[in-house]
């Protein structure tokens, strides 16, 4: 039996190694700060593992290649940052409508536009949810450490395969560049989910007909001769561009397979929430400052707690709604001008106050800043 290994990795290496451990064998990407480290590391490691690395001519090509590779049967990933992710959006929609498993590691920097390329931001939360046009759902996962970058990227691949959906691994410049201890479990202890394949003869196969929410996926060369289109399509995969009924069926399917299973994807770290009166909501790098702030508050006998979201989308609405029966004060600390805050506000249905503690990019909240906000909320200002 192999033993766990202890590594000293930054968040980018952890993402890359985690992806390889999850079975990723295809990477297409385009250089962008601060996400290039992942691509560089994959260029080094993928051929060693029998995989393919290709640097494409832009981010649009990168995600298109990913979708192609996924239909070619490979687990595929790219890495990018805000501007590159913006370029990918049309094909995020293609991946959603064609129900293609893939993973996008999005290392956030401060935006909008070119913004602050080398410094942290968290302004892409809504872009991960609403970036492409039309109605669709994605899964978005956010790590706070190199260890989580390793563990959760594996989960990202597994969810992508399980739900046939693009998963966005929403990390940030700080977590990606931070070096820490990472415990890598032995291979046989890492669970890598494989996509469901059809087990019926080709003439009976309906490539987009879900069985328990998900349709088995026949990739290229399996003999199923599947037609895959970005047009509205029926269960057979054929375009149905003038049928509102098929459109409704299809949109409900690609959204509901995620919405219905939100509780299975829910991943929240609660810290000192058992008797908390004030809850700080945070994710990614800010989760660490927020935890420190909660500790400071507790030392001053303020009943504060931390809710750290590791799965951001689908948003755990019902979790917040029921929490708001007991907790009347929420603070959302994030490096943007209010994104997750809007979701918390929506979810608590007016049963609690929700305050934003923004940072605008280029810096992470100091624990003391969050602590000051906790005091302010506690005192009712």
């Amino acid at each position, binding site marked *: 039996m192999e033993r766990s290994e202890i590594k000293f990795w930054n968040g980018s290496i952890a993402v890359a190694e985690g992806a390889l451990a999850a079975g990723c*064998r*295809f990477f*297409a990407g385009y250089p962008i700060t601060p996400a290039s480290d992942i691509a560089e590391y994959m260029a080094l490691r993928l*051929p*060693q*593992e*029998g*995989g*393919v690395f*290709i640097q*494409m*001519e*832009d981010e*649009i*090509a*990168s995600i*298109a*290649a*990913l*979708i*192609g*590779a*996924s*239909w*070619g*049967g*490979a687990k*595929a990933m790219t890495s990018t940052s805000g501007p590159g992710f913006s370029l990918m959006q*049309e*094909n995020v*929609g*293609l991946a959603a409508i064609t129900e293609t498993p893939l993973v996008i590691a999005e290392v956030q920097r401060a935006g909008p536009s070119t913004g602050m390329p080398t410094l942290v931001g968290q302004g892409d939360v809504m872009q991960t949810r609403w970036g492409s046009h039309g109605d669709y759902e994605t899964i978005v996962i956010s790590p706070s450490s190199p260890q989580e970058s390793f563990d959760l990227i594996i989960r990202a691949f597994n969810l992508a395969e399980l739900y046939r959906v693009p998963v966005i691994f929403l990390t940030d410049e700080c977590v990606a560049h931070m070096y820490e201890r990472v415990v890598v479990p032995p291979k046989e202890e890492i669970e890598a989910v494989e996509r469901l394949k059809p087990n019926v003869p080709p003439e009976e196969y309906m490539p987009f007909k879900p069985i328990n929410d998900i349709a088995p996926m026949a*990739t*290229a*060369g*399996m*003999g*199923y*001769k*599947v*037609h*895959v*289109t*970005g*047009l509205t399509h029926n269960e057979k995969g*054929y*375009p149905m561009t003038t049928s509102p009924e098929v459109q409704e069926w299809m949109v409900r399917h690609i959204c509901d397979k995620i919405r219905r299973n939100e509780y299975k994807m829910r991943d929240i770290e609660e810290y000192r929430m058992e008797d908390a009166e004030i809850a700080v909501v945070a994710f990614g790098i800010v989760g660490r400052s927020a935890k420190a702030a909660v500790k400071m508050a507790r030392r001053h006998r303020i009943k504060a707690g931390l809710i750290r979201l590791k799965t951001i989308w689908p948003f755990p609405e019902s979790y917040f709604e029921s929490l708001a029966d007991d907790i009347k004060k929420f603070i959302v600390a994030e490096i943007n001008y209010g994104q997750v805050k809007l979701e918390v506000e929506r979810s608590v249905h007016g049963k609690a106050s929700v305050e934003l503690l923004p940072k605008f990019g280029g810096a992470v909240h100091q624990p003391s800043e969050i602590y000051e906000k906790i005091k302010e909320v506690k005192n009712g200002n």
Partner: protein
Amino acid sequence: MEINATQHPMDKYLRADRIPHIWCPGCGLGIVLNAFLRAIDELKIDLDKLAVVSGIGCTGRIAGYINTDSYHTTHGRAIPFATGLKLANPEMKVVVISGDGDLFAIGGNHFIHAARRNIDITVIGVNNYNYGMTGGQLGPTTPLGARTTTSPYGNIEHPFNLCHVAHAAGAVYVARWTVLHAVRLKNSIKEALQKKGFSFIEVIAACPTTYGRRNKMPDALDEMRFYREHSVIKHGIDPAEANIEIGKEIIVGKFVDIEKPTFNDAVEELKRKVKKK
């Protein structure tokens, strides 16, 4: 007497439940599809190991009619999709069939880079001089002076010579035919499919509905007769010499057929070299 039939010999390669296709009377796309299927037929290519990828537009619909693994992607992105598919699944024969606008305007960057890398795919670019599906707008191949819905006074842009672009970017096989050269086109497709590396065939096709009727060729037959009278076969000519201009002869033929290591072979070689035991 002619014999009434209900089945066509090529039906076995078509998704018969989707025929008739959506293309207008006289549209050249059906001829391209036919030539492609006959090439497949004559080469006895295993349909289970063939993937056809299209972008958006009238030509983009071709993939959906062929009974094989077929992918109708986003506008301009057929080539990078095909690149990913081929790299992830090297045993597949991957063919991109798409239009001039899709491959050379919105997707132009991908075309030149796939040719530069020498990705092992075949690209069939159907050039009908305009954006047909959206109503006949000016495209990257619209000849100088031609009228389209967005060049109502005549096109003032210089068009691409697609074969020249392909050659300059590094394609190992470059040919051009009109749809009237259907047999030669089929033979060219057979050659391209057997060629290792990035092969490109430009097919000049009639678009009577949105291009022809604004350019004094209102009937598809007018365009086809023009091909008969004004196309000249010049194998091996420098594609730079084969510009397309209104009213001038259309030079067709096989222009380039060279050998060059492919990206796919290089990837496999690299894997062998650095693979961890």
